[in-house]
């Protein structure tokens, strides 16, 4: 049987998580949520997801700090990380890419955009 792939949705907005989870589930991922970077890191230490949809600005630990720590974890290079943030300044987007994000989604987004980005990085 084919293993169901997991996508961790990290965002401090519950509404945003709900929207994103519904979209990744339509793309046949099992959706899991975390409300900030630290919570996400705890999840990753227990079970590394296949994909991570990552907000930038969050309380406790932001997206960039999470990504830095994730990549230092054993097996932490494996998840495909797609940023999903309202931050749209080119130099900030470049910073996220330099930290090892495979793609970047600027909010607001829709299902087509997530599908298009997931396709571009080979997740679907």
């Amino acid at each position, binding site marked *: 049987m084919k293993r169901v792939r997991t996508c961790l949705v990290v965002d401090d907005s519950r509404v945003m998580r709900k929207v994103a989870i519904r979209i990744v589930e339509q793309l046949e991922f099992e959706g899991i949520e975390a409300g900030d970077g630290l919570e996400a890191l705890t999840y990753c230490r227990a079970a590394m997801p296949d994909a991570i949809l990552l907000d930038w600005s969050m309380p406790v630990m932001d997206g960039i700090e999470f990504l830095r720590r994730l990549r230092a974890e054993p097996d932490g290079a494996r998840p495909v990380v797609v940023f999903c943030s309202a931050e*749209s*300044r*080119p130099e900030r*987007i*470049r910073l996220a*890419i330099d930290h090892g994000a495979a*793609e*970047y*989604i*600027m909010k*607001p*987004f*829709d299902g*087509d*955009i997530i599908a*298009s*980005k997931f*396709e*571009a990085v080979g997740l679907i």
Partner: protein
Amino acid sequence: MTPADLDFVAALVRAHAGVVIRADKAFFIETRLGPVARREKVPGVPALLEKLRQTPDPVLTRQVVEATLMQETSFFRDRAVFERIGKVLLPELAARRPDGRLRVLCAGCATGQEAYSIAMLATDLAAPAAVEIVAVDFGQFPLEKARTGLYTHFEVQRGLPIRRLLAHFDKIDENWRIRADLRQMVQWVELNLLDDLTGLGSFDLVLCRNVLGSLTPEAQTRVLASLEAACRPDAVLVVGAQEAPTLSAAFRPAGSPGLWQRSQAVAQASASASAPVPARTQA
């Protein structure tokens, strides 16, 4: 919009652009004609069509046809096709030209995403500036947008990799504008594909994707003949991945659905027997 309204629009589009409108498109057409009705300051699409029935004004007719035909497009639409073009076909074609000069035709370019996608691929070549792209469309409004190179937040997130966005676009308020060096690679031409295309010259790469399928058989034959005539002896012709046009025997599958390459040897051999062969399916 009544069935009679739909028939009226369908007849206009067929007469002016050779395009067949399917009956199930009524809702979609009404949505597209809404902005034209507002511009004309008439209360809705039925009133717009009534006005056109009373006075068949050529400018308004054109606007109605243009709005109805507006193509949905996105950057790098059908990724596999662009991967093949960028990694294999463009470098191969460029290598065969002593000066690296390549001419590309985008037939039915709509709001320009296809032409700019090719321009972005060309930046990976040794001599990007040697690539000249001619982009043709019937629509005045889409061409105006294409020429400015300004795209919305949503448009730049469909099919366009983030690295390409950073490399080739500038953020202007909430929109993104493709940079001048890429804009300068494209020449925009307002032209009906049913018209004579010989003035455009000949090309190494000809793209006409998801256009042929909507044409009447007569229009399709005519457009295909023009496109074939625009192809240089070893040119690549790109149609929609799902389209199976009836091409002359000189065209052979070129490695990805919708891609065809003209073979010089076959072109010479079949010069005397030029009857078109049925479209072949690809392996």
